[in-house]
């Protein structure tokens, strides 16, 4: 049953960079761990009952063990503190089966972009691509050399010259690889994982360079923050109602609709819960939520009026 926990033993725990612990997990009972594909993560049950998701960073072909990298977040909700402070080698813990929301797709060339702890799924991808003798390049952005994890692995001959460490680059990055963001050649795919600001910068840069969304792959560790202020006004037409509702800068679509007597169900008002999800039949939304998946956004048939706006002068919605 895929919902079952797997008992594992923490075979090793070591600090691989400032505030980053690498955990080596082996099956508790000698049985094999389920195979995984690059980009996969597992749920880890931590002391205190917390459950957190961590990407597997060892080579997918590596039998019998899983490796995780965990960044200590002192302002976090306690998951990474539990890992750093309360887990010790030899301890028994429980994990879920691997689940992959960030898979590699067949490509002529893969561009891997990691920011900080985002290196973990990216590293597994690099291992897979190297094992497959596939064409790829890896860019790893860290604030300081001390914060670069797994550098010994990245320096291994199997990665030859394909990995580049960018130290001290600002985030958003100002790295000197503008060619990355030129229009991609056929069959090129880009993968990015890291802090939200880093990912936004990479994805925005790639889109501006002409990368289509279906060749951009990303995984976020946390919900995207809401952008503040400076929004353009737009219009909403409610199909069948006749009226056009003007949404001012600094006003949410839901607020503008409510002011016009059209009430939309609201709950979190941060684009997380999806309560306000509304059908779009015309125009293109500017999605600001963390609810819709990339595929759902690509379908262009709905948006969250609590926080999202319009990329076109007018949206036509259906109630």
């Amino acid at each position: 049953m895929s919902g079952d926990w797997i008992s594992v033993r923490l075979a090793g725990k070591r600090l691989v960079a400032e505030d980053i612990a690498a955990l080596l997990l082996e099956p508790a009972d000698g049985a094999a761990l389920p195979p995984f594909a690059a980009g996969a993560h597992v749920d880890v049950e931590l002391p205190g009952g917390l459950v957190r998701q961590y990407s597997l960073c060892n080579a997918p072909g590596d039998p019998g063990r899983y490796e995780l990298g965990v960044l200590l977040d002192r302002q976090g909700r306690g998951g990474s503190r539990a890992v750093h402070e309360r887990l010790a080698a030899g301890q028994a813990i429980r994990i879920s089966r691997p689940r992959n929301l960030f898979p590699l797709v067949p490509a002529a060339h893969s561009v891997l972009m990691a920011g900080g702890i985002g290196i973990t799924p990216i590293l597994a991808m690099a291992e897979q691509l190297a094992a497959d003798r596939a064409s790829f390049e890896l860019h790893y952005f860290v604030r300081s050399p001390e914060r670069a994890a797994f550098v010994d692995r990245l320096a291994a001959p199997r990665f030859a010259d394909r990995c580049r460490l960018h130290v001290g680059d600002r985030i958003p990055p100002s790295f000197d690889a503008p060619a990355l963001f030129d229009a991609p050649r056929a069959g090129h795919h880009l993968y990015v994982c890291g802090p939200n600001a880093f990912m936004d910068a990479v994805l925005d840069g790639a889109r501006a360079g002409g990368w289509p969304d279906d060749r951009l792959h990303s995984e976020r560790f946390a919900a995207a923050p809401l952008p503040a202020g400076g929004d353009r006004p737009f219009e909403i037409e409610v199909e069948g109602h006749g009226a056009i509702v003007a949404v001012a800068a600094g006003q949410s679509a839901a607020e503008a609709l409510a002011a016009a007597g059209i009430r939309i169900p609201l709950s979190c008002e941060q684009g997380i819960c999806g309560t306000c999800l509304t059908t779009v039949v015309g125009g293109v939304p500017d999605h600001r939520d963390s609810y819709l998946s990339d595929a759902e956004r690509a379908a262009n048939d709905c948006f969250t009026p609590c926080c999202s706006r319009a990329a076109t002068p007018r949206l036509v919605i259906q109630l």
Partner: protein
Amino acid sequence: MYVRNAWYCAGWDEAVGIGAHDLVVRQIAGRSILLYRTGEGRLVAMEDRCPHRSAPLSLGRKEGDAIRCMYHGMLFGPDGACRQVPGMDRIPEGAVAATLPVIEKDNWIWVWLGDPARADPDLICFAIGPSDPDWVLRTSHLRVDTGYREEIANLADLSHVSWVHGLTFAGSDDWGYIKPRHRLNPRGIETRYCVRGVPAPAFARHLFADDARFDINVHVRMTVPCNFILSFAVHEAEEGGAPNEPSRGKLLLDTFSSQAVTPRDAGSVDYYFSWGASRATDFPGIVDLMHRTNMDAFLEDKRILEGQRARLLQYPGAPQVDIVHDAGPGRMLWVLDQLLAEEAAEAGAA
């Protein structure tokens, strides 16, 4: 806070007989409602409070179609009007027990808490009762010490099936990844989706090969206060279907569940439910197995909901985080809150 102008389920019809001692009291939305049947079997719903000194009428005595309060002997007819005050020739003004509109439908008893003039029978939620000839349904009931808003949130988001019901309804964690769209109705929400390619649920695992996979077509209709009507059809898994399209695999078992959750007070609910199979897809033993499993599963809900309530009381006002599975609860609670706000505005204007 309760919507007044709504039908509230007061249980299965068989719970109220015509015997001398069949005086059934239900706690509904902070009120105590006495249910009894007249000699002709007609149901009467009456506030369980004598207008004299508030003794419970349910401690009284049935006399024909009337009920006598056994504190000072006042006799009340099924319309609530006092017929007799022993030792007094004239009936004092105001000697009336409040009665409520009551209707039996789909083997459920429904009472209307609000303005009797607005008691529209069409507002009673759609259901299929155990006496429906096309279905083989078993019924039961349960009390859960939780608020009805928490029950709404439980039922409007079935992702919890994977985690709460891993030993009963779920066969995998697939329910935890379903992200359905919930359609808004004037008094509730409606949700359709398909859970695809899942193994048999834990309770029926032994009936199928290990590698058997199923598609489950789910159709939920929820209405205020907390009625949950579920069509749950198990099909052979088909290749490559979308989660928002119904499965066209061969229908193996068509099941239906009608569930009414009635708030007793701020911290407890009465839960009346059924589950069973269509007569066309029923096979020996399956409905009894479903019936036992249903109770086991709802005890799993009871455990988590009562634990949740304990923590809510322990940490009042503690911040809570939203996640994608909150869309159904968000919509259903929003509908409820709209109706509450409308009633509050009416009360304020009156």
